[in-house]
């Protein structure tokens, strides 16, 4: 399997800082904001953003982890059983400004299921979408990000993966392109 680094660690680090500042610009003191990381991998991005925001002085930000398995539209569409992951939403989103956070935006179907799933916790004032990578020209639904790390062009069969490094604090992520 061929793989290629699409974005260097340094570049990703810069992007994360930019996303963080864009959130600060739009959400002020975050008092009415809930950041929601989507399982399985959006949660890691959420963690990194919360760390960076903490360094900027925003120690207490309401956040949650949402699994959308039971809201997916491909139940009984393949041999696979869709296994759920943990949801940790200890905050209601009624009247709140929600930011959904995911690593890669591909077809848009998981975001659609997240839009339905989040309703279980109340009616938010607004919902925005933050993604680290947008795979252009591959959307199945009219869904676009409000905060975007980088746009990537990849063939349908390719996998774009965000790999998080645990050891180093600053340069934490790199992207790989896998050809099948």
């Amino acid at each position, binding site marked *: 399997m061929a793989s290629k680094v699409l974005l260097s660690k340094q570049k990703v680090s810069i992007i994360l800082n930019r996303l963080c500042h864009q959130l600060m610009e739009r959400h002020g003191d975050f008092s009415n904001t809930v950041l929601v990381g989507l399982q399985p991998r959006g949660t890691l991005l959420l963690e990194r953003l919360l760390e960076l925001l903490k360094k900027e002085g925003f120690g207490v930000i309401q956040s949650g982890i949402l*699994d959308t*398995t*039971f*809201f*997916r539209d491909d*139940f*009984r*569409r*393949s*041999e*696979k*059983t*869709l*296994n*759920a*992951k*943990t*949801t940790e*939403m200890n905050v*209601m989103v009624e009247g709140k400004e929600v930011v959904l956070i995911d690593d890669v935006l591909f077809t848009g179907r998981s975001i659609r299921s997240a839009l*339905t799933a989040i*309703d*279980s*916790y*109340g009616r938010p004032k607004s919902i925005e979408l933050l993604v680290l990578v947008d795979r252009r020209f591959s959307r199945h639904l009219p869904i676009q990000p409000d905060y975007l790390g980088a746009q990537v062009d990849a063939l349908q069969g390719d996998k774009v993966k965000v790999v998080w490094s645990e050891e180093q604090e600053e340069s934490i992520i790199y992207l790989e392109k896998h050809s099948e």
Partner: protein
Amino acid sequence: MKKLSVSHLLGIKYLQLEDLHLIFETATHFKEVINRPIKKVPSLRDITIANLFFENSTRTKLSFELAEKRLSADVINFSASQSSVSKGETLVDTVNNILAMKVDLIVMRHPNPGAAHFLSKQVDSCIVNAGDGTHEHPSQALLDAYSLQEKLGDLKGRRIAIVGDILHSRVALSNIYALKMLGAEVKLCAPKSLLPKNIESLGVTTSSDLMSVLNWCDAVNMLRVQKERMELSYFPSTREYSQNFGLNGARLKQLRKEIVVLHPGPINRGVEVTSEVADSEQAIILDQVENGVAIRMAIIYLLGSQLNRVTT
């Protein structure tokens, strides 16, 4: 992606340990779902489920129906007393008629042991056994074991006692299979007349001394005396049964350690447990009921995901 090793839930006997873990893991996610302000998920919105109850039930029927509705399935209910069964229709005919209305999954309670197994061989549908006579009640055993795990952690090496009418209890048999599979030690306690012959061959021990069993165990499952299944008298009087095999506050206080008390319901207060015990902190009877919905959602979700694939 993990999936169940079976396409019906006929009994715990037919499951593997991995199935139990998968059901428990999925149930944990559903337990979070049923504690949300909006407790419904759309997974099974294109599936129709028939609940066939050929025998009375309150808890199990409500629990299954709620689980199905929380998963957005369409639900139809059938009870034998109001049906053509009383006109002489056979079980297979009844079920095939219901299936002809495009029903995908059958949840059935039946007074005859083996009814669910028989039906799974006769009709082309997914069958969930909600209790077949004195044989098995898998969903109850799953929710009992799940509730115990929640309270005690891993059940491996834990000591669980089952007290009461073992002879007529499908809950006991399913519990034995499930608890043994999870690595627990199981001891049965009942009057000799209510213990099936050769039950030790399932790897359990027996006793008729309640206090020694209570001192031995980490948790006790108090079963109801099933008078409706008794054609003859198995013990001299209810009072005597209660004196020898009933759990009361005084007995709990005498024990060397605090034990967990389960009861599958319905409770005969004052017979197998007193109100003091049933309403105590040690009793997890209402947790069992809450977990029952989550466990049944997990069962139906996992079996439902294996139903004929939607094709274009």
